């Protein structure tokens, strides 16, 4: 009989590996059915990903995805399905762009101020859903979905016209007044170039990567090493038992929702602080929903979500090269992400059941052994 440790490791890796193999096979079938050569497509994706510039793109994409994943995961840990990251981060970014452009602050402090505004707005907005839940018993799934629409279609759409920077000469479109340079986050190109060649083609590795790492570490410390985090997890696993054990569940719900929103506020910052410097028409959307996928795939684990965010970022950055080389259409990438997610959720569930059965068997064997 194999050792228990080996079994545990096997079970831990069985799900991701099974999901990957399944997704690989299914994606290949989809590629073949749509008339593309899967080997060419995968080859093109990997060749592209190995270029330094593409890696920068990938890390820039990973950063907001990971932060968004953490924001979703904080809620999930508590059994709160915060679907509202989407609205929270867009509203936060919009508010930060508008307010940040109106203040004059010294270098660095300005940047922190903008981030602070985003976190506060994100926290307050998700706190609204938390408040509705603890006071009126409104399910957070419903309230956050509705608040998403209120934020993007209501508040932002309504206020955008007021804060739109008027361009002379009848130019079409635009965005809010750009942030002053004191609010830009420095890029990490200098640091990366210490180890590699010079980064060309205007790629800049966003300084928000550092913030994302900090968020990840704090998330780990909070959930796994702090008293509050333990309470959150306990409430998530068994609310009744936690309550009996003295954890105030209402405060916990509110806390988890607010923290989730605070982190969500940072999702739009890579765009705002290092790319567009304004909330404009092309502001990147859908990252809140992508974060849910990252949290699901990474099992709410601080490290697991790094892998999930990297994988999604790899697929996202691959879509360009696939189209331009004509090896596959852009939709393939979205299909692959869906397949991977579906496969992962199913695989985790199946492995979880095997684990549970195993534990039950072990437990019953132990009790039988004890009584006999």
């Amino acid at each position, binding site marked *: 009989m194999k050792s228990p440790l080996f079994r545990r490791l096997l079970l831990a890796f069985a799900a991701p590996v099974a999901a990957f193999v399944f997704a690989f096979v299914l994606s290949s079938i989809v590629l073949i059915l749509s008339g593309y050569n899967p080997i060419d497509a995968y080859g093109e994706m990997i060749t592209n990903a190995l270029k330094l510039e593409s890696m920068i793109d990938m890390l820039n994409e990973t950063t907001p995805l990971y932060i968004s994943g953490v924001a979703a995961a904080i809620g999930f840990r508590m059994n709160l399905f915060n679907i509202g990251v989407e609205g929270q981060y867009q509203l936060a970014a919009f508010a930060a762009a508008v307010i940040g452009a109106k203040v004059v602050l010294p270098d660095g402090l300005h940047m922190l101020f903008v981030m602070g505004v985003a976190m506060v707005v994100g926290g307050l907005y998700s706190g609204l859903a938390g408040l509705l839940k603890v006071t009126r018993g409104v399910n957070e799934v419903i309230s956050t979905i509705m608040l998403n629409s209120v934020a993007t279609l209501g508040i932002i759409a309504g206020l955008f016209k007021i804060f739109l920077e008027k361009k002379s000469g009848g130019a*079409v*479109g635009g965005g809010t007044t750009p942030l002053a340079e004191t609010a830009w986050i420095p890029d990490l190109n200098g640091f990366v170039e210490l180890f590699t060649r010079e980064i060309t083609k205007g790629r800049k590795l966003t300084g928000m990567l550092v913030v994302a790492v900090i968020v990840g570490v704090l998330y780990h410390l909070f959930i796994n090493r702090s008293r509050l985090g333990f309470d959150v997890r306990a409430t998530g696993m068994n609310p009744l038992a936690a309550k009996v054990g003295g954890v105030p569940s209402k405060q916990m719900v509110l806390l988890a929702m607010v923290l989730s929103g605070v982190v969500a506020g940072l999702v739009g910052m890579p765009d705002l602080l290092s790319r567009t410097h304004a909330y404009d028409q092309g502001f990147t959307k859908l990252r809140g*929903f992508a974060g849910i996928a990252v949290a699901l795939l990474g099992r709410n684990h601080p490290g697991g979500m790094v892998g999930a965010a990297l994988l999604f970022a790899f697929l996202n950055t691959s879509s360009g090269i696939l189209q331009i080389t004509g090896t596959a259409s*852009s939709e393939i990438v979205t299909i692959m992400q869906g397949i991977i997610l579906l496969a992962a959720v199913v695989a985790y569930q199946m492995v979880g059941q095997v684990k549970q059965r195993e534990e039950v068997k072990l437990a019953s064997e132990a009790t039988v052994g004890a009584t006999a």
Partner: protein
Amino acid sequence: MKRSWKLMLSLLAAFALVAAACGSDSAGEADAGAGDDPTTTEAMAEEDTTETTEAAMEETTEDTEAMASADFNVGLTFDVGGRGDQSFNDSAAVGIEKAEGDIGISFSEAEPNADGSNRAELLQLQADNSPLVVAVGFLFEGDVKAVAAENPDVNFAVIDSAMLDFDNGAVPFGDNIAGLTFAEHEGSFLVGAAAALKSETGKVGFIGGVSGFGLIERFEAGFAAGAKAVNPDIEITSSYITEFPDFDGFFAPDRANEIASAMYESGADIVYHAAGGSGGGLFEAAKATSEASGSKVWAIGVDSDQYNTADDAVKEYILTSMLKRVDVAVFQIIHDQAAGDFAAGNTVYDLSVDGVGYSTTGGFVDDITDQLEDFKAKIIAGEIEVPTEP
């Protein structure tokens, strides 16, 4: 119980992602129809007369000569949604396909991910392989500015953005950046006049796709001005499907249908749309209303000659279409590049170069073309100044 609830939600989320993928997939493949536009050739003949602003006349010198050969690659970059809208984007595709046939260029197409996060990356990848990158849509403005600065040897053209630095005396953003814009208000003026001439109820309608970013309002302003020029007492109702930053209004035929039906019900007998892919809903509503009430109501199409691109069943309800010749602009810029004549700055495709206009397919406006041509001549001559804001 808790577990299965969580699993259900997880599966739901996963399924939503897959479903989203399928959705955009079908949209991307529906690029049929817009292929043969009978008016293409006439307008192409005008190609050498396009106006450029003074600042634009400087040529980029460095590499244009080396690229003058006709077998270079063009990087055509669509915005989210891409081909298959039977209007704006497909028109760009018509232009590049014509260039492929007539000039002999090759081209690579790309569109961003659904979240719009990789516009800059796409432009950069295109620039790696192409001496000319054409970006379809004003949302590319900022990214083209940045990427063009990094690629001084590659020329960039953006559709629907002037690409001029208005804060500093309207100079081009770079020697390698061209902006291709259209005088939509002028074309809309003509279809507005056509609507007023044809309307029996004295009431016409306008449906815009997305309000709040300044482009679609130009269509509305021109349409209203044209209608009023014919009949100062005409009643015009305007409605937008969505507001910025929600761009769904360009992909919502069901909502266009509802709005149009309400307009027809309230007495309007001609409705003009500037709502991209939502236009199909207007045509359906025109057909349904006509059949239900027995008296014919009309729809007016936009961008492409929609009599040719719409379903056969609704064709006879399309009075005319406001033509926005994206295909002409795309072809022209490739032609310039091939000839070594790429010019930075803004090129406005207006009535005088047939960059905008109205379609006559179907023959429904044959009886009023004299009056429309009269208006057209007056606009070109500057006797009528068409407003750009409603």
